[in-house]
């Protein structure tokens, strides 16, 4: 007997990925570490920023990096040179990391160290301003980078990425004297699509603005420790 039927699901299209991302986050919370997902277009300066940040913060924070790259391990080698454990995740044709890939990276990381000994896990996503915005990996906070060389229109052209970010870094500010670009306009456009995020102006090359960035990172680590303390508030979740 064939009867036309209809089931109402109301499920998120990405439920399978979200399910795995929640599972990853449960582990992060049990290990009491903060996970930051760093995203940008290719060449915006994610790896340079991380090189600099890892060098400074490793004085008092235990960190590791899951490094997403489509084909090479070049970025992973650069970061490993800083002295922080790095697990490369080669995504092949995929233009973003998803929660299952990050779970695979965590398995490899656990062969090298006890994640509970970490304060902070960085996930450097594949360079792309579109897809990574939709695929949660279990992160507590999303960080987006936009370099001054990309122009002031990018927050309006790729609004989802900048809307989703908790912190947006305007990078390569040392190049401003050589460019016909208005950095205030870049910041205004970011705030138009996301008035609540933190916006910082930085240069990994000159060091401008990095102290404020390090403060932001340390604050997130502290908040995660407070929230995952025994008997503490519920785990930190990206709004």
């Amino acid at each position, binding site marked *: *007997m064939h009867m036309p039927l209809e089931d*109402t699901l109301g499920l998120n299209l990405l439920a399978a990925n979200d399910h795995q991302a929640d599972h990853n986050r449960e582990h992060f919370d049990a290990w009491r570490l903060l996970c930051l997902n760093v995203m940008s277009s290719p060449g915006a300066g994610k790896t340079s920023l991380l090189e600099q940040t890892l060098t400074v913060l490793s004085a008092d924070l235990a960190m590791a990096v899951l490094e997403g790259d489509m084909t090479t391990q070049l970025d992973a080698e650069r970061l490993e040179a800083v002295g922080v454990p790095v697990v490369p995740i080669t995504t092949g044709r995929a233009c973003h990391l998803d929660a299952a890939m990050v779970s695979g990276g965590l398995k490899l990381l656990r062969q090298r160290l006890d994640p509970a000994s970490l304060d902070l896990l960085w996930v450097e996503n594949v360079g792309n301003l579109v897809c990574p915005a939709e695929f949660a990996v279990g992160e507590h906070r999303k960080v987006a980078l936009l370099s001054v060389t990309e122009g002031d229109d990018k927050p309006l052209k790729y609004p989802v990425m900048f809307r989703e970010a908790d912190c947006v870094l305007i990078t390569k500010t040392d190049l401003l004297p050589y460019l016909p670009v208005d950095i205030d306009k870049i910041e205004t456009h970011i705030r138009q699509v996301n008035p*609540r995020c933190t916006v910082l102006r930085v240069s990994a090359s000159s060091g401008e603005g990095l102290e404020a960035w390090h403060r932001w990172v340390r604050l997130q680590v502290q908040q995660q420790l407070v929230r995952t303390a025994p008997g503490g508030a519920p785990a930190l979740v990206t709004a």
Partner: protein
Amino acid sequence: MHEVDMTKCLLLSMQEWSQQHAPQRPSVQRVHLQVGTFTCVEPDQLVFTWRAAVKGSWLDGSELAIESIPLVGRCVCCSSTYLPSAEAGYRSPCCDQPMEEIVSGRELKIRSVDYSLSEPSPADTRRLESRRTDSSLTPQPVEI
């Protein structure tokens, strides 16, 4: 082409849904999605990848029906709703405020499924019985 990965997620959800009807076999005509315009999804590409992905599977012949949900914002100043646009910098036309609250447009939802149920053949019943005991077919988060 992240629509390929989105289709994979969708197929996992559909498989999980079909198991709720076991031992009967749902024959799916249409899957209704709601896709907001303030997402990274291109509906035409999603339909294209769906057709390619279901070929030869239990969902062969089923169609995706995508309802586009417009981006609607609410002005933080006067609470009136408006249609934010890139041209207007996503600002509210009433009070010229940035896009604080999004009322709709971020949807990526499987709304419903049109299907019919047929009684399972003895072979199907045996297959489903063995499937039910095989937990690997149920999507589970990968253990870290």
